[in-house]
Each structure stands twice: as structure tokens, then as C-alpha cells.
């Protein structure tokens, strides 16, 4: 049994490193499909994390939640995105307002900022420090992605990364909220995505371009 314990401990300590890698990759990526794939990877890591904690803390709901993450976020959403790209013949590359190098530097800055923020709160929270740092990093990256990306679809990815960050924060600090609330939140995120997809279709029809930054008619 020792191996399982050690691997669980190893996973618990090392997963945040992988998350940081995905954060950097997400900032640097230029093609939309790789960005979706990275999001899937992130969700997978979080699912593993949930499963390990479930095993570690002997919580049955954790397994249900992990399964939910795998079904929805690792498989469901990326598949939906790829279908969406084909149907909309959306251009593949990601239009951003900050160049790739700048984005990476900002991502690194975000990671350092999240560590600094966590350290100031670490005293109050006994949770593993790097877990909380990873969640804050994910949140800030999500926000950064939404602010810097010009395409509607990329903004949806940014939002999903933000949700992942919040979900991870909930996970690392309190080992998950009551199950009903977790499922409710998942349902809301899903509905949000569905509606955003709907709106992307309508933007496509009325503006026949996907560039959100051009939507500037309502001013003043």
C-alpha cells in the first residue's frame, strides 16, 4: 500500500507544476485547437487531483465529481468546440492584442503574483501552498485571456480557465463543497457555455466576423 500513498503524495505535490506549465502554454499558444487541447489537459490534471484527494480523504463524492469533470471538461467541451469550429468555419489562429512573448512574460508575472498573494494568506490557510497558488494563477490567467484575446471563442476558453481556477481553489482549501452545490455550479457553467455558443452563432450571422473588439457600436 505504501506505493499508492507515496504516489498520491507525489501527485499531490507535483500536479501544480504541471498546471503552471499549462498556464504558460496557454499564454503562448497561437492556434485555437491547441488552446482547447490545453484546457482539456488542465481539466484532466484537476480530475486526477480530485480522485487522489478522494482516495486520500476517503470521500465518495470526490469520485463522482472527478467522473463529472472527466466527462464534461476533458471530453465534452473540447469535442463541442471542435464541432463549433468546423460549423462556423472560424479562422484557426488566435488574434490577440498582446504578442506571444509579452503574453508569456505576463503569465510568469501572474504566477509570481499568485505565489506572493498566497504567501500573505498562507498563515490563515493550512492547505498546501502551491495548490492555492495554482488556483489563483489559473484565475488570473483566465481573466488575462479574456481581456487580451479578441475572438469570442477564445474569450469562452478564458472563462473556462477562470472557472477551473475557482473550482481548484474550492478543492484545495476545503476538499469540495456540498455535492448539490458542486453539481449546481457545473450545470451553470455548462449552461453559460451553451448560451455563449448560441451568441457566437448570432454574432457570426449579424456581424459575419468573430472579432469581439470590433463590437463597439454602443458607446458613451
Amino acid at each position: 500500500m505504501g506505493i499508492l500513498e507515496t504516489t498520491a503524495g507525489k501527485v499531490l505535490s507535483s500536479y501544480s507544476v504541471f498546471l503552471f506549465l499549462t498556464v504558460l502554454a496557454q499564454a503562448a499558444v497561437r492556434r485555437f485547437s491547441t488552446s482547447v487541447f490545453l484546457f482539456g489537459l488542465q481539466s484532466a490534471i484537476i480530475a486526477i487531483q480530485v480522485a487522489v484527494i478522494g482516495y486520500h480523504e476517503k470521500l465518495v463524492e470526490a469520485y463522482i465529481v472527478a467522473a463529472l469533470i472527466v466527462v464534461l471538461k476533458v471530453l465534452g467541451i473540447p469535442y463541442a468546440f471542435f464541432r463549433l469550429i468546423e460549423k462556423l468555419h472560424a479562422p484557426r489562429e488566435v488574434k490577440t492584442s498582446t504578442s506571444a512573448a509579452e503574453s508569456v512574460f505576463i503569465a510568469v508575472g501572474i504566477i509570481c503574483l499568485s505565489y506572493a498573494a498566497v504567501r500573505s494568506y498562507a498563515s490563515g490557510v493550512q492547505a498546501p501552498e502551491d495548490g492555492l497558488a495554482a488556483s489563483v494563477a489559473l484565475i488570473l490567467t483566465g481573466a488575462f485571456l479574456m481581456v487580451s484575446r479578441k475572438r469570442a471563442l477564445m474569450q469562452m476558453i478564458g472563462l473556462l480557465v477562470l472557472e477551473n481556477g475557482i473550482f481548484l481553489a474550492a478543492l484545495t482549501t476545503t476538499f469540495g463543497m456540498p455535492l448539490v452545490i458542486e453539481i449546481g455550479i457545473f450545470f451553470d457553467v455548462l449552461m453559460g457555455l451553451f448560451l455563449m455558443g448560441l451568441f457566437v452563432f448570432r454574432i457570426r450571422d449579424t456581424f459575419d466576423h468573430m472579432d469581439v473588439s470590433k463590437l463597439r457600436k454602443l458607446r458613451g
Partner: protein
Amino acid sequence: MRVLECPLRLINFVGRFSPPVFVQTEIAAAKRCLTRASLLLATMFSVAISTGCNAGDRGLLNSEVRRLDPSVLAPFPFTFSLDRLGLFFLVLILAVALPVLIFSVSYVSRHYTPARQKWLWALLLLFIASMVGVVAASSGFAFLVAWEIMSLTSAGLILLEGSSGERRHNLFIYLLMTHAGTAAVIASFLVFLPHSHTLDFTALRAAGATLPHGARIALFLLAFVGFGTKAGIIPLHLWLPRAHPIAPSPVSALMSGVMLKIAVYGFVRFAFDFLPGGPAWFGYLVLIAGAVSGLLGVLYALAVHDLKRLLAYSSIENIGIIYMGLGAALIFTAHDARTWAALALAGALVHSLNHALFKSLLFLGSGAIADSTHTVDLEKLGGLQRRMPVTGSVFLIGCCSIMGLPLFNGFIGEWMILRSFIGGSTLVNTNAQLVLPLMVGVLALIGGLAAACFVRVYGVAFLGRPRSAEAENAHASPRAMRVGTVMLASACMAMGVWPGIFLRPIVSLAQSLVRAADAPPETLMISHVIPWVAAAFILLLGGTALLKRVKRQARTWACGLPGLTSRMQYTSNSITKPVRFVFARVYKADRTLQMLPEDRPYFPASISYHSERTTSYERSLYRPFVDGVMAAANQLRRLQTGNIQVYLLYIVLTLVLLLLYLRFAG
């Protein structure tokens, strides 16, 4: 005492129900309701006058006359009660409202479509009811509600007259400045709250005595600015010459005659009733503001040839005189010379009553002129005395009163204020001893300029030859108009010739306000001398009129040349040109002279001269503030860029800022 009891009970009864009764009358606002309203007003007026006059010496009314307390109705205390100060101003309102209503019976029916007439009657009666409400209010909330409704209904009445571009702009300025003034009034009421916990006047009065010094200064300044805006003190007067001329004549009579006095009532209530003692500089502030308003008001009146704007500016002048009286009273109370303070305050109150009478008379006269000649531009009038005899002689009485000539009612107030200024010399080694006597010169100069202004008004409008076709075939005004104006004129004459009838109660009111022990001796003296002067005057007039004379009509002398035309007469601007030349620096007129065609200056086809006098306040005081606010608004508009990424950035930035605040200052 018995004889006083029945009118007192009637006034209580009527006082208790006057606001709601008014509310009823204005809802059924057809013409037939007018008779009921004026009947009611008539009874109230006669009763109020009777109680007011002979209640003075026996101090009958020093206690609260009547408390109407429908506070169960509104969430905040909403009580009405009529104490002596309230009764005096109620008499003032009714004394003007009754003739104005009678005047507007025929004026309204000749000038407005039936639909507008109904609206006008409703708003007019609500306007009067709100003024009665303000005067009778005895809780802060009731005062403010009535105060706002007063401004709203007067704006509604102005809107009824017409809503073209220029009028709308003037109305906008009027409402905006009145609202800003009301904000200051609300603030001045609420500054009491930490000390008095409720807004009832008795609680305010008690808290006022024990107010800390800082709050007292803040309160006084707020009240001064708030009520000054509504009264039209110089820097805050911008709306007055814009709003009064564009209102229907009876309404501008009420606004100029009575609404300004309601502002004076508010200020007196605060300065004398709620804040008894105050440092001397309160008085100097009010005195200087009054002097400046008086001087500049009459100087601007000299420069204007639209009759109603002229009367509006002269209202500013008279409010200035009233504020000079109030300032002197405040200085005297600060130096504890209570008797002189009573004289100055009584002078100010007398002048506000007289001003209400003759100013509304003049506005009704201008209404009658507008009714028959369809214009109030002095340059187009002339020779109206022969064509509108009654309106002419009534207007003459009005002009004599506003100039303060002895046998008319304007003189009494000015005399008392001048007498109190001279009394200022008895305050040994205070700077009041120096300042107050000098104010005699300022008041005399204001009186002289007012005389210059109204010689021109009456001379150009009513005497000499008619200067336009409209003036040529002007016709006498209908009966109701004449009756209204004659009532006011006879009131002016009566008060001018026999001041005793109304001096005693006002002096005792002033005494009770400044808590003076004994009444100033002089007032009774003046009320004895003037009747004798009047008697001697009439005797002399009778005597000289008996001279036997042979009358013959002959053409006016035109240096022997035939064909003296009306253009050869002095116009209203030319009569005052010398005076305006002397005070040229005040006007800063920007003149534009244009010769056409430009390239041949020496052989001009036409020369056009235009001089525009914009008061410097508008440019130097209000314009920068308004431009600043609009610039800030436009800058803020640019924040709403329309780009969603920027919106998200705003949220994240706010979050980061708050986290930093939490981190370092939390």
C-alpha cells in the same frame, strides 16, 4: 378683548383648513370655483388684517396661535401652525393674492385657450396655497414640501405661457438655480438634526440656542445662500430677470411681490428665530450683500427697456434694501442694542410688505399694458395716460411708491431703515459706528437711481406722444383689471398717508423676534408727523387749484418748425444715458459696429450698431462651473469605450485595488 375673540377663532378655523381647502379649490379649477376662492380669500384677508392690526399692542399672538398636526399622514412630522411672524407674511400673501386673482379674472380669459385657462387656475391657486403652506409650516418637512411645490407650480405657470427655445432656456436656469437653493435650505434644516433630533420648529428653536459655534456658522451660511438664491441676492440672482418676465403678468406679480418675500420669511425665521445670537460679521455679510444687490439691481434696471425685465431687476434692488435692514438688525443684536435692532427689523418687514404691494401693482400695470398694446417694450409705448387713464394713474401711484416719495408707502420702510442706520452711530467704538452711517449714503444713492429709473418708466410709457401704432390705438383695460389695480393702489396710498394703522403690530412683532424690551420711540413719531404733512399737502393743493385760469390748447413749441413727430421725443435709453455714462464701468457693454460693405468704409451702404450687456457674473462666476461639470461629464463618457475587453479590465482592476486596500489598509 371680547371683540377680538371672534375674529381670532375664525382665523384659527380658517388657518386650520386653509391648505386643504385650497387643495380642493384647485382640483375643481373651473372659473366658477374662482368666486369661491376669492370669497374665501376675501374673508381670510379681512379677518387676518383685523387680527393683525389690533392684536399688536396687547401681545395677543405671542403664543402659538393654532397647531394643525396631520403628521399621522406623512412619515415625517408634517405640522402647520401660525405664529406672529407667520401671520404677518400670511397677511402679506393674502393682501397681494386677492387683487391679483381679481385682476386675472379678465386677464386670463382674454389671453389663454379654455384648456390652458383650467390649468392656469389650478396651478395659480396651488401656487398661492403652497406659499400659505410655507408660511404656516411649523416642521422642517412641511416647510420643504411646500417650498418645492411653490417652485414647481411657478415653473408650471411659466411653461403654460409658452415653451419656445429661449423661454425654455430661461425656465431651465430658473428651476436649476431654485433647486440648488432648495438643496442648501434642506441642508440648513438638517444640520440641526444631530442637536435637535426632530425637525419641529420648537425643537429647532431650542437646539438653536445651544448650537456649537461651528454648526451655527455653517447653518447661517447655508440659510443665507439657500434663501438668498430664492430671494435674488446679487451673485445668486441670475434666474430672477430671466424667469419673471416670461411668466404671465399676474403670476409674475405674485412671484415678484410675494415669492421673494417667502424667501425673506425663511431667512428671518432662521436668522432671528432659530439662531438668536450670532457674531457681528453675520450682519456685515448680509448688509454688504444687500447694498451690492440694491446698487447693481437698480443700475441694471436703468439699462433695460423691457418693462417686465426692468421690474424684475428693481425687485432685486428692493430685496437688497430689505437685506440691508436685516443686516443692520443682525449687527445691532450682535452688539446687544436691541431697540435699534427692533427698528431695523421692523423697517425691513415694513419694506417687504410695501414692496409686495407696489411691485405687484406695477406688474399688474405692465400686464394691463401688454393686454391692450401687446408689447411691454418701453421704446414702443408713450401717451398711454390719455388712452388708459385708470391704469395710468394707478401706475403713477406705483412708481411714486417704489421711489419712496413721502406720501406713498415705499417711504415708510426706507425711512425706518435710514433711521436705524443713523442709530448705528450710538454703538461707540465698534466698527458698526463707522459702517452704518455710511450706509445712509448707499441707500440714498439707491433711492436716487430708483427715482431716475421710474421717472423714465412712467414718463416714456405713459406721457408724451405714442411711439408706435399699438400705443396709438391702446384701449382702456377691462373692469376687473382696473378693480384689481385700484385696490392695490389704494392700499399703497392708505399705508403711505396713515402708516400708524400697520406700524404698531409690525414693530411689536420685530420686538418679539429680537427680544427687545421697549419699542423704538421714533416709529410712533413718524406715524404722527406724516398724516399732518398729508393734510397740509391736500390743503395746499386745494388752495392753488382754486386759481382762476383761462385754458387754451396750443401746439408744443418746436422752435417754430412745423411737424413735431413722436421720434423727436427722448426714448427710455436716452433719458438714462447720462446716468449710465457715469456708472459705465458696471455695464461693460460689448458694442459691435458693422459697416456694409466692408471694403468701402467711407461710403457705407448701411451701418448697424449692436450693444449687448451680459452681466459679468454669468461669464466669470457661472460659466466656468458649468463648463467644468460638462468637461468632466464628457471625460467620463470616454470611459464607456464600448470594448468588452476594457470592461473586463475595469472589474479586474477594481478587484486588485480592493485587495491592495485590504492588504495594506484593511
